[in-house]
């Protein structure tokens, strides 16, 4: 059977997808926060980030605010989050990975140092910081899916 094609979430997804606070994967976890930015470095204020800790089977979703900001509370023992990015202007969601610490990993090993840097969260203020750039010189690495 032919797969149903994708369409954008549009600017109003929050009424359907952000009715609950889904951004806490682990209440005792560490804060992971960042901004979703477009190709001009402008905040994407109508985007959404979903993360999946496949090893620990914990899932979360955060809409972005006017400053492009998203935030999660994620397990301290998690190494990497499988991640989808949605937004107005994105006709299909994009897949990336957020590495919460540097690990030996076949995916990272196949990337240039510049690409690797886009996938690695940085410690900041007791939490972790991870910005997602849709385009540009420091575009986040997105994966085929």
């Amino acid at each position, binding site marked *: 059977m032919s797969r149903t094609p994708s369409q954008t979430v549009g600017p109003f997804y929050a009424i359907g997808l952000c009715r609950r606070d889904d951004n806490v994967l682990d209440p005792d976890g560490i804060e992971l926060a960042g901004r979703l930015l477009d190709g001009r470095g402008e905040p994407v204020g109508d985007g959404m980030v979903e993360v999946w800790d496949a090893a620990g089977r914990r899932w979360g979703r955060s809409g972005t605010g006017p400053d492009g900001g998203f935030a999660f509370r994620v397990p301290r023992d998690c190494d990497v989050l499988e991640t989808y990015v949605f937004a107005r202007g994105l006709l299909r969601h994009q897949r990336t990975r957020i590495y919460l610490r540097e690990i030996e990993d076949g995916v990272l090993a196949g990337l240039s140092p510049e690409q690797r840097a886009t996938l690695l969260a940085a410690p900041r203020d007791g939490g972790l910081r991870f910005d997602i750039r849709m385009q540009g010189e420091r575009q986040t*690495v997105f994966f085929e899916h």
Partner: protein
Amino acid sequence: MTTAADPYEGPVVLPDDPSCGPEVQIDYPGYRSTRWRAPKDPLVTLPEELHRLDGPVFGESAIERSDADLTRQHEGEPLGERIHVHGRVLDESGRPLRGALVEVWQANAAGRYRHDVDRHPAPLDPNFSGAGRVLTGDDGRYGFTTIKPGAYPWQNHPNAWRPAHIHFSLFGRSFEQRLVTQMYFPGDPLFPYDPIFNAIRDPRSRELLVARFDLERTEPEWALAFEWDIVLRATPFEP
């Protein structure tokens, strides 16, 4: 947001081109918001095992009783044509996906979303929130009751109107069965003018987003019915 300083002079809708494949063209120029948001670097391949991960499972706790009937979430009834929307969630081999979370959201009958950013000067309906969620049954079936959403203007280009649609978000069993899409209504006269719909360049693939009017499932003296099956990618493991 697109601005006057960021004009787009090209065609809003490109010609059909089945050679583009069945998926949507993510840098479709007529949909202006793609310009600074669609990634430009080539996608990187992942090891096979990362395409086979299972995904989150949502149980009944994700659902509230009123979630399957968007016409009964307030004191009074919303204005508009009452409709039943139903269908199956399947994988590419035709296997029904049980327990799939289906989330929907939509404009009201006047074409207005209950969202702060929506500035369309059409009335809000105090009896309509426009959001629901259901889980598929053992046979992959889902269904909900709502009102038919209106078309609305959206400023992408001069006199731009979106065809009436319901937004759908789906989780299957595997992580990569995730899908966000839109369901349209048969025979909408706005189809040829909508860059979001036409960003799927293959017309046969585009048709997969159009529901079928379902006379059998209409409820006499009460509601019209539309049927729409959703096909997610192959399940990469035995479910």
